[in-house]
């Protein structure tokens, strides 16, 4: 499992070091526990420690906890202004004018973490146009944002 997570981090040009024995899985969901939780953990747990993400059809879907951990490394990242941050968590893409700061890869097709000005990771996206060459266009396509917490509850209510 560690490989899928480190491979995912590499998409942002980052290296993340997780201790294999502290990663536990239940069905297709993966968690990072600490040594205290390890001592108390039974096989039939439902959730434990920090949720890292899930695998589905051999694809890895990260959690926001994992994205936040990656954002603390030297990953590709952009910082956006308050208005853009709000639009992003509502599921919108990002215009160049909303980008306050960018570090790491700025090239087309690279994946970047999106942070607000308080250094909080809001999600991630894909660069549509080289950040250095464009001035006004949509530059980041939204792939995942923290508004998902609200959207998934709405879906759960509809399903339930």
């Amino acid at each position, binding site marked *: 499992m560690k490989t899928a997570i480190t491979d995912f981090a590499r998409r942002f040009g980052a290296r993340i070091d997780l201790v294999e024995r502290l990663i536990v899985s239940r069905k297709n969901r993966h968690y990072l526990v600490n040594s205290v939780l390890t001592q108390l953990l039974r096989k039939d747990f439902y959730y434990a*420690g920090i949720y890292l993400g899930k695998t589905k059809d051999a694809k890895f879907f990260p959690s926001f906890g994992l994205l936040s951990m990656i954002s603390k490394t030297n990953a590709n990242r952009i910082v956006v202004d308050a208005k853009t941050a709000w639009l992003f968590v509502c599921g919108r893409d990002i215009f160049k004018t909303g980008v306050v700061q960018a570090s790491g890869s700025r090239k087309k097709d690279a994946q970047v973490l999106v942070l607000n000005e308080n250094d909080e990771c809001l999600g991630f996206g894909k660069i549509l146009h080289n950040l250095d060459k464009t001035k006004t266009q949509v530059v980041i396509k939204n792939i995942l944002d923290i508004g998902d917490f609200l959207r998934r509850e709405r879906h759960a209510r509809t399903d339930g």
Partner: protein
Amino acid sequence: MQNKTVLDACAAPGGKTVQLADLMQNSGAIVALDIDKRRLTALTNHLERCRVANTIVYLMDARKATGLNIKFSRILLDVPCSGNFATDKQWFSRRTLEDVERNAQLQREILSETVNIVKDDGEIVYSTCSLEPEEDELNIDWAIKNLHLQTEPIECYGEKGLTNIFGKTLDPSVENCRRIWPSQTQGFFVAKLKKRKP
């Protein structure tokens, strides 16, 4: 609360679990149980959203908690209850005395189970959002008399627990509980319990 081992026996949807984790500054361990799988989804969403890192969740009936083989230093029993009219306008037409008595019995069963897994110097916090004495003071009085528990004073607003109910006089220490009548908040009842020293 740091580095304690805490049981949240009826945890979903997780608001109190997150508050516990915050009090513990994400240290130690919380074991959170709930019997309803659908409600566990809400609980785990809360844990993920609030970056809680010290919690293990089990789909488990609190009445089977001894199976965990863990001794806890703190136990939160926010037990299933009948609720109250402040949050449910149709409460009086929806609830019967039998419902209240059934809930009171379930609450006693949960209390009895958790007494076996609290450490000798540990603490149990029992709470409900019911205003029915059967689920509140009468259960605490029963626990004092049958489970060798004692109440502890709590620093919390609200009024003293009732000690004269339905013509019955309860243990005077039931006064240590807090009964919060619906006014600025919805109704609530809370008690802190410890094992009585032999």
